[in-house]
């Protein structure tokens, strides 16, 4: 069986729709580019100023003026282009980006996201994350279900400073997929191979409903 990150990225990839503009956060979210389904074309935006991000360049073909927000070398697909940071965040904040995929430290039942700072630890900064969760039409949290100490990342209420208030639309972990609906909160729609409904209940602190047609063994093979 694949590792947790691969399972999450693969399930997230299946959620992509043809023609979408997406932004992938640093780390796990970047892997989603490897799982775009056959017949689905998405356009990847990177907030440092490119759209139409393609595969990594072949070794030796890196170009220091062509990189993503994590400073990894990129190529552009035909039709891609470059722009400045003010224009980039016009694209993001202005709702022109269909979906953003971000890792997190915490997410809670109201859709609050906390993924930029651990109190007492070194400050890194929110980068573009606050703009992305505010502006993207659909905000995906793609993250392991539990923190290293085994506690649930899916909480009743975030305890760390927020990145965005009530912005999370979908949570995909290696164990389950939840979607948030207006007035209903999060609904458990899919459970991964190897887990039961009880397993999910046991490792999830946030409140959620279970969909009538919840799919078991829905992903993660």
């Amino acid at each position, binding site marked *: 069986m694949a590792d947790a990150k691969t399972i999450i990225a693969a399930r997230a990839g299946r959620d992509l729709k043809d023609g979408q503009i997406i932004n992938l956060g640093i780390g796990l979210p970047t892997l989603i580019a490897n799982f775009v389904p056959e017949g689905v074309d998405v*356009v990847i*935006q990177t907030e440092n100023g490119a*759209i*139409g991000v393609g595969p990594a360049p072949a070794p030796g073909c890196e170009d220091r003026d062509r990189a993503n927000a994590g400073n990894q070398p990129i190529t552009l697909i*035909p*039709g891609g282009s470059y*722009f400045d940071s003010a224009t980039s965040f016009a*694209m993001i904040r*202005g*709702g022109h980006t269909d979906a953003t995929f971000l890792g997190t430290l915490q997410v809670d039942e109201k859709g609050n996201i906390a993924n930029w700072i651990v109190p007492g630890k070194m400050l890194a900064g929110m980068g573009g994350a606050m703009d992305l969760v505010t502006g993207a039409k659909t905000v995906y949290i793609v993250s392991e279900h539990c923190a290293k100490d085994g506690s649930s990342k899916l909480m009743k209420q975030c305890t760390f400073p927020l990145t965005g208030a009530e912005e999370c639309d979908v949570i995909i972990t290696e164990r389950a997929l939840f979607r948030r609906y207006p007035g209903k909160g999060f609904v458990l729609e899919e459970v991964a191979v190897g887990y039961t409904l009880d397993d999910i209940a046991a490792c999830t602190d946030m409140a959620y409903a279970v969909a009538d047609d919840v799919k078991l063994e829905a992903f993660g093979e």
Partner: protein
Amino acid sequence: MPKNKVVPIEEAMSHVESGMSIAVGGFIGQGDPLTLIDHLKLMDVKDLTIYENDAGYGERGVVELVKQGKVKKIVASHVGTTPAIGKAMNEGRLEVEATPQGTLAEMMRCGGAGLGGFLTPTGIGTIAEEGKQLITLEGRKYILVPALKCDIAIIRAHAGDTWGNLIFRGTSRNFNVPAAMCADYVIAEVENLYTLGELDPNAIHTSGIFVDAVVRANVEYCTIREEKFNG
């Protein structure tokens, strides 16, 4: 591969309905989307609200839609180049709201950028501040201008690819760039259509992310396609 947005003009323009707000690119004829305006002339729509720098030049441009009775209101910086506009106003057939040119451009950009509004010093102490919220920052007074969001934008570009990346030529760029940002559905007529990858990725003025439909401009409104066009 980025989606092919080249569609028949009928299909693109079918998104326009009576009562809608439309941002229009161009500047007294420079870069006005005349192909799309010509098509609007044939459509059965009315009560349009137009946001544009002007109403065209002489007898051409949005002024033609005004003469047809399709336009309820124009928000513009200047309508002096189209005499028929004054006549329509005087006869009570058209409402015109004058807005400083820089304010109008910024309203469009701001709406496209997901901002709620901006503070401008332009118009302080004039009737441009009437009915507006004023905010003082560090001793200077500003008008709070809300961002503009429109239902539709119609624009013209000199070159475009099938995904809607656009390059403008000369002073025809003007309001076409901010207009393309602020609308739910953006239709670009392009004088010269290129395949993906033909346009220099460093030279794109309006990214295809802002554009929903690409239509060929009527040949009479086109300037010549240049070899290896880069802007």
